[in-house]
Each structure stands twice: as C-alpha cells, then as structure tokens.
C-alpha cells in the first residue's frame, strides 16, 4: 500500500475525508441558499431564474457539479463505512448507558441525521434536479424551476417533509461544522470561539432560510 492510500484508509484519514467533503458540502449550501433566496424578491421568479439559468448552463459550474455529486457520494459512502467499523468496534453492547452525561444527543446521532438528510435528498432531487437535468439532456431546454416550486409546494405534506429535512440538516450541521475543523486538527483557544459561533449561526440561519422557501410559497407570501 502506498503512503497515500495508507493515510486515507487509516482511522484519521477516513475522518479527514469525512471532514473535507463535509466542508465542501457546507460551501455548496451557501451557494444553494443564496441563489434560492432570490425567490424572496417576489418578482415572479425573474432574479431566481436568471441565476438558476447561470448555474444550469455555465460550463465551469456544470463541471463543479460533477465534483458536488462525488462529494455527496464520498461523504455518504465514507460515513457508512465508518459507522460499520464503529459498530463492530463494540460487538457486545452495554446494558445501561448514560451517554447524556458526557455528550450531546446530536453528536452521537450523526449517522441517523445523515440518513434522514439522505432520504430528504432523494425526494428533493427527484422534485427538481433530476427532472431538470434529464430534460436538458433530452431536449437541451431547461425546465421552469420557479413554476415547479410554486406547484410542488402547494402540497402540505411536501412542505412538512422539506421542513423536517431542514431540521435534520440543522442538527447535523450543529455538530458537523465544528467537528470538521477538529478532525483537521484545527482546535485551538485562538479560534475555537469563532468556529463555534459561526457554526451555530450557520446551522440556524441556512436551514431556516431553506425551510422558509416552501413555507412562504405554501402560505402565498411568495407567488
């Protein structure tokens, strides 16, 4: 095994991959939330569609999109691998555990929260990304994503699923954001407070912004 494979398949290496892909996905959330928030201009989707068109057709963005899909797949696969290894590291479970005395529930539930986000992601991409890209491949034409949002978010159950997806994301980020830095060795009194504050703010603001989109459309605030 080369030094590189050895490093990446070691316990720390697998965590570093988890951390780097996680931070990459966090950077994607910033772009995704910013562009989707254009719907709040309430201009009939003009600004949103302008940027949506840019993201859907720009060759650099389209190339980066391959990286994004890979980022998701690696984060999920590595997470499943680590979870399996971690479970087998304790073949006989404790009869009694008082884990709340030493750690937060969400830090211990990253696999569960990640699975909930994955289920949401399957629903979400089958609503927008998959039909849109399929149509682009088939006809070269983009779909009217704004109109699709207005239609899809008329269903209360869809809105509830999206809000639950955002809640899972918020808890996942609340641990994941700061955890990613610790794994990279970035844990120091000089900047721990900054990472914690930014992490908490990010975990609240971004999922809230996302959740407000289906809610606003359902309630007719955005039309």
């Amino acid at each position, binding site marked *: 095994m080369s030094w590189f494979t050895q490093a990446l398949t070691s316990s720390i290496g697998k965590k570093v991959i988890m951390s780097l892909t996680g931070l990459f996905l966090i950077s994607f959330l910033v772009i995704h939330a910013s562009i989707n928030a254009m719907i709040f201009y309430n201009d009939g989707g003009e600004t949103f569609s302008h940027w949506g068109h840019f993201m859907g057709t720009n060759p650099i963005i389209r190339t980066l999109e391959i990286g994004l899909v890979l980022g998701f797949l690696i984060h999920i696969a590595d997470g499943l691998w680590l979870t399996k290894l971690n479970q087998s*590291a304790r*073949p006989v479970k404790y009869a009694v555990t008082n884990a709340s005395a030493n750690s937060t529930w969400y830090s211990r539930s990253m696999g569960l929260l990640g699975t909930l986000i994955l289920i949401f992601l399957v629903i979400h991409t089958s609503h927008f990304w998959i039909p849109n890209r399929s149509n682009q491949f088939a006809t070269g034409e983009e779909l009217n994503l704004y109109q699709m949002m207005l239609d899809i978010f008329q269903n209360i159950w869809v809105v509830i699923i999206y809000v639950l997806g955002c809640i899972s994301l918020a808890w996942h980020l609340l641990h994941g954001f700061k955890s990613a830095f610790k794994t990279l060795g970035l844990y120091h009194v000089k900047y721990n407070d900054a990472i914690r504050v930014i992490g908490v703010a990010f975990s609240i603001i971004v999922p809230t912004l996302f959740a407000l989109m289906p809610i606003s459309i359902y309630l007719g605030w955005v039309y």
Partner: protein
Amino acid sequence: MSAGNMRLTLKVWRQSNTDTKGGFENYNLDGVSPDMSFLEMFDILNEQLIEENKEPVAFDHDCREGICGSCSMFINGQPHGPLKGVTTCQLHMRSFQDGDTITVEPWRAGAFPVIKDLVVDRDGFDRIISAGGFVSVNTGNAQDANSLPIPKENADEAFSAAACIACGACVAACKNASAMLFVSAKISQLALLPQGQAERSIRAEKMVAQMDAEGFGNCTNTHACSAECPKEISFENIARMNREYIGAKSSSKVL
C-alpha cells in the same frame, strides 16, 4: 470503616472466561457505609459470596488511590460511575442512594476482550505504546535538571497529557470504542518536549497504525472521552494527534 445502613441491589456482569457467554447476576447487599469506596463495597460483596460458597466477582484493582488505572468498571452507564474526574476506587458510596440498583459492567470493546467478569484485557494499549510511545535514548544517569531548558507552559501542557493512566475509560465511554484520547495523550506528551522531536513523525504514524490494527473505533468528536476521563485529559490532544499524523504522513521519510 464504620458499618453503614445502605441497602443496595447490584446487577453485576458475570462471565467465566473470554470464550463463554456472560450474563447479569443480581446481588442484595446490606449494611453498606456511605464512606466506603466502590471497591470496598465490592470487597464486602465478595466476602458475602465466599461465605455462601459462591465464586467471588473478579475485578481489576491495584493502588486504590486513583493513579494506577486498573479499576475498570462501567457503573450505571458511565465509566468509573457518576462522579467526574475520578477512578472507581475514588468513587464513594455516598454518590448513591439507599435502595439503589447499581448496574456494573466491564469495559465493552472488541479490542478489550473480557478475561473474567469485570476484568478486561487491555494489552492493546501496551502494544500501541510499544509501537512508538517512547524516546530511544540511553538512560544512564539522570541528567542535570536544567540542561535542557523548557518553558513552563510547554512543560505543563506535556505533563497534563502525561497524566493519562491508560485506564481505558475513554474507550469505554466512546460510542465508537475509539482509543484516540489515550493515543493522542501519549503522542502529545512526547511531541511537546524536545526529547520527543527526533522520532516525532514515525511515532505518530506507528502508534496510529497500531491503534487501527487493534480494532478500536474512529473518533466522532463527541467529547465523551474527555468528559469521562479520570485525569481530565483535554480533547485538544486529539486535534494535536490529527495534526501530527497528517503532517507525518505528508512529510516523513517513511514511504
């Protein structure tokens, strides 16, 4: 030790050896003093079992003053019980209420197989130390104390890491049975001092490789290890180990 009046129900894990299946046994214990240590309470239990011609409970203990790290007991869902910053021998029965049911289990980890009852095999830790947790120097006579000046802050930080007694509570507490707090403390205590510099890279690489080979889990940064550590080893050590390992892998002479 004054005779006490606490009545307890103990639910203790019994297992005759590594290869047999274990299970819980319930024992009633009367006359427990709140001033007894948890291990003294177990001594009373074992005397009672011997009088009844039953097999006493096997448990690890040595110094009984909180520094040897032998007394591995998972008490009511926490390593070394509910009190922070102590080992089982330093836990007293006043931390419990009269009439309590106390569940006592061994450390649970694939890398710590049960030898008997509450005794587990922690040789994995020794093998990790043998892999690189040392400095290769001829000992000879002790050096003059000030021949190698070290700033107090550095000495303090190294000493805090060196306070690790290898008890294994970090592994027991971690939801993933990860040994990273232990390994990182051992890597840190040497990485922070000039004596540890020559073997710094190879040490991080070898100790992490041995930790992985032993089958310990992977850290998910929950901080449970640090919260349960009887010596309150800082979580900062794990971040330092990550830096040491990433740095070693990308720059060491080992191919």
